[in-house]
């Protein structure tokens, strides 16, 4: 059981981290709560189903196609629907919610509400000290780790990363320093949806696909992002593993755990926020300039 908890927690934590970091990134840069975020995860998972199962393409090709398609959808949604009303924060929130409903309904119309499965990329398992770990789970965790380290390198070492962080700190000043803020916003949106897509692609084989699969991760990543401190990529990463382990522990140890897992994870978030209102790694700032 202990190894089950450990493996499940790490795998789930990896996926949540991929999703939450993207959510934190787009929140930090564009100051928007993007409720469509986990829809990209859902779309990418369906992409794997479409390209690998229905079209019968090679898994690698399916992965690339799904990733590119989802990223493009993310960028176009931003360009078409969000960019022009960026000043109205609550309206942006609502538009992202309505768009999430649109994506969900399109998938429902196209594939119906029944559960679908995507083919696994790698079968078999690996024996570590007597514990069977399937390659798919290793793949999820490994990809999450590599992608997040890559993102960290991008954000801290490259010129683009510096531009993104500058825009997140203060978009007006960044603009005055010669950074093309609207292009940075587009790039960030592309990055965030690509991260969500990678999350969806790697977990697609382990999940049942259905059009409503975006809601539970959305709630969890919003909790994670708040827990870690809004806009803090490191905080989201650690928060993802905390809440993932809480969820898995509840499922394994508490009777009726499947019903209570979300509730208890959210309760943990509320309690941590009562102690540290700015989240684990957030900075308590005075009134933010908008």
């Amino acid at each position, binding site marked *: 059981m202990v190894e089950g908890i450990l493996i499940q927690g790490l795998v789930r934590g990896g996926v949540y981290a991929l999703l939450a970091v993207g959510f934190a990134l787009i*929140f930090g840069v564009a100051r928007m*709560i993007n409720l469509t975020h986990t829809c990209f995860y859902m779309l990418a998972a369906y992409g794997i189903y479409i390209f690998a199962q229905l079209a019968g393409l090679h898994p690698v090709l399916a992965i690339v196609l799904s990733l590119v398609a989802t990223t493009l959808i993310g960028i176009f949604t931003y360009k078409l*629907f969000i960019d*022009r*009303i960026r*000043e*109205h924060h*609550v*309206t942006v*929130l*609502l*538009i992202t*919610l*309505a*768009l999430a*409903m*649109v994506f*969900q*309904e*399109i998938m429902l*119309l196209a594939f119906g509400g029944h559960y679908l499965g995507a083919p696994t990329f790698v079968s078999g398992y690996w024996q570590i000290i007597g514990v069977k770990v399937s390659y798919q789970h290793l793949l999820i965790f490994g990809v999450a780790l590599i992608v997040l380290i890559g993102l960290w390198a991008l954000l801290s070492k490259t010129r683009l990363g510096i531009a993104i962080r500058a825009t997140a700190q203060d978009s007006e000043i960044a603009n005055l320093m010669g950074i093309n803020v609207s292009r940075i916003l587009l790039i960030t949106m592309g990055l965030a949806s690509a991260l969500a897509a990678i999350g969806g692609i790697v977990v697609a084989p382990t999940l049942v696909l259905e059009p409503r699969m975006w*809601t539970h991760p959305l*709630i969890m990543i*919003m*909790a994670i*992002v*708040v827990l870690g401190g*809004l806009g803090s990529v490191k905080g989201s990463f650690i928060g993802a593993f905390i809440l993932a382990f809480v969820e898995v522990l509840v499922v394994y140890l508490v009777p*009726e755990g499947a*019903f*209570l*897992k*979300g*509730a*208890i994870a*959210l*309760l943990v*978030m*509320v309690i941590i*926020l*009562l102690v540290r*209102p*700015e*989240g684990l790694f957030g900075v308590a700032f*005075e*009134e*933010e300039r908008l």
Partner: protein
Amino acid sequence: MLAIPGRFIALVFFVLLLIIPSFTRDPYVLRILIFANMYAIFAVSWDLLSGYTGQINFGHALFFGVAAYTSALLNTHLGWQPWATIPIGALAASIAGLVVCLPALRLRGPYLSLVTLAFPLILLGIVFAFTDFTGGEWGISGIAPISSDRTVIYFISVLIMLVSVFVMWKLTDARSSLVRTGIIFHAIREDEIAARASGINTVRYKMLAFAVGGFFAGIAGAFLAHFMRIAGPSNLDLFLSFQVIIWTVFGGIASIYGPVAGVYILHPLMEFLRVVPEYRILIFAGIVVLILLFMPEGVAVWIRDKLERECPRCKLSNMAFRRTCRACETSLY
């Protein structure tokens, strides 16, 4: 009367609501309107808390659900009548508002929104885990109806709606000479630190906003529980929390008439779209997206801006075609 077209339209609308039963008593139409009346209270209460006070609440269904479950339990277990259970349910929702308020007082902005999101979901987990008491997925059924005649229920709902919306309108009126809450709510939203620096106990007013918002949302929840005769987990659903945001922002946030307009446009639309059940939510969401793209401040606010113009000097509303203010004769151009 005609000087402020917005108010005139509101008056005509309320009179229409009151005389609709003399034209049609079709139970389906009345059912939609009863729902719309209660959802209007629900949306306006969200507007008071989130639009005016700026405490964007993602979990408004909590108040709705708490009141629905409270009145359902009181009615089925203790046999109390609707006239007692609805106010008590609303009070319970008000207390829930104060509980949510405790963490909310320490948080602001998106942190607050996301924490409030958690509360109805936590309660929903509890509802599903303790099925003996709460009925689990099936909810609590067999609640006493408010009246056996649907027209009577309709009139009661219209009256409750008018009184509640009027009270909330007055509470949020920034120019009111009766109550100070309106201007203080505005101040908290615009700049909480400045409000505190001006000697306003912002904590107390935020608690008030949560309690009042919870109370009116609770009235809607308890009333609909008695009307539907069932209180189920859908009352706490994430979708309901988001729907109230859709109605309010669609109509126009921080305007009271905005959420009312949003509900009376979108709720019947959603019912009408049942003619194409598979495309219902898709069309609904598509319409919301397209309209908001062109009227990002909401439909009602967009229409008001076409009809009325505010005098720059005395802040009185005027018809849009007037060249000078009707009171102080300042040029409106």
